[in-house]
């Protein structure tokens, strides 16, 4: 199959038949057809850039993250098995690339999962009980601020925990699908997910309980 010359134009591409277009583009990329890769970029770049911008809030950083995401996607495309939509797979890669860039630009340190788990005394009571979380406002500005705190928290998770959060809580795969995608046992997915959520809760606690000093 040959792509038209116009595929070289640097304008967004919106296929009439996304399912057929996806199959053709994947097949094209796998046989090394540059025009197919160009179409993939023109089709998905806008959404990926929008996601990266939402996380990084800086046009130049977001452009770099989008470019990195495409590089990663290109290298991994042979392993894309078509079980999820291509756009969903690209979304995951983009979020990861943007979070890793956020980690760098904000100099965030990876947290120790152990340190971010709740602590209990000998009688099984929690040691560090703080104030309850406040109701979150619908206010657009606050929602953006809150999302920023969440991005920073996820960026601080160790890779193996962030992966599970991505698949289970963000892309909402079930435990078995996640286990299969990551090549680990379902039990490990469950444990990591719970510990990752507890870590995120702990990282967000100062802000959400309204004692924010950050």
């Amino acid at each position: 199959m040959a792509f038209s010359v116009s595929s070289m134009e640097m304008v967004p591409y919106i296929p009439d038949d996304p399912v057929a277009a996806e199959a053709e583009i994947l097949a094209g990329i796998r046989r090394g057809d540059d025009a197919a890769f160009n179409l993939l970029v023109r089709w998905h770049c806008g959404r990926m850039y929008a996601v990266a911008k939402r996380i990084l809030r800086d046009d130049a950083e977001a452009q770099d993250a989008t470019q990195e995401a495409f590089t990663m996607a290109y290298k991994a495309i042979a392993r894309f098995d078509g079980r999820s939509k291509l756009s969903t797979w690209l979304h995951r890669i983009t979020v990861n690339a943007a979070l890793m860039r956020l980690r760098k630009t904000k100099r965030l340190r990876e947290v120790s999962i152990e340190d971010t788990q709740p602590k209990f005394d000998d009688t099984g009571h929690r040691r560090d009980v703080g104030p309850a979380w406040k109701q979150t406002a619908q206010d657009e500005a606050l929602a953006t601020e809150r999302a920023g705190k969440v991005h920073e928290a996820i960026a601080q998770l160790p890779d193996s925990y962030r992966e599970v959060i991505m698949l289970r809580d963000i892309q909402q795969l079930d435990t078995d699908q996640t286990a299969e995608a990551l090549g680990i046992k379902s039990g490990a997915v469950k444990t990591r997910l719970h510990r990752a959520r507890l870590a995120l809760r702990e990282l967000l606690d100062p802000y959400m309980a309204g004692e924010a000093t950050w």
Partner: protein
Amino acid sequence: MITCKECIEFLDDYIAGDVSPAALENFEKHLALCPPCRDFIESYRKTIEETRCACSEPDEQVGCDDVPPTLISAIIESRKLDREPDA
């Protein structure tokens, strides 16, 4: 009566509705008597919700009109450069 530690250890199962009726009863008994655990569950749920919101996939058409053309060409060019060494 279960402890706060046991309550929090199995929070994910409880939230997913993945517990036996007996365990559920123990859970709810504990929660009825333990405000800190009630707050904790609320914050755990909120964490899941905020995580999903902050990183959700945008609608199909988002960003289509907002791509810098230089970005598209930069990505396409960088692919070509990547490949140059073994070309």
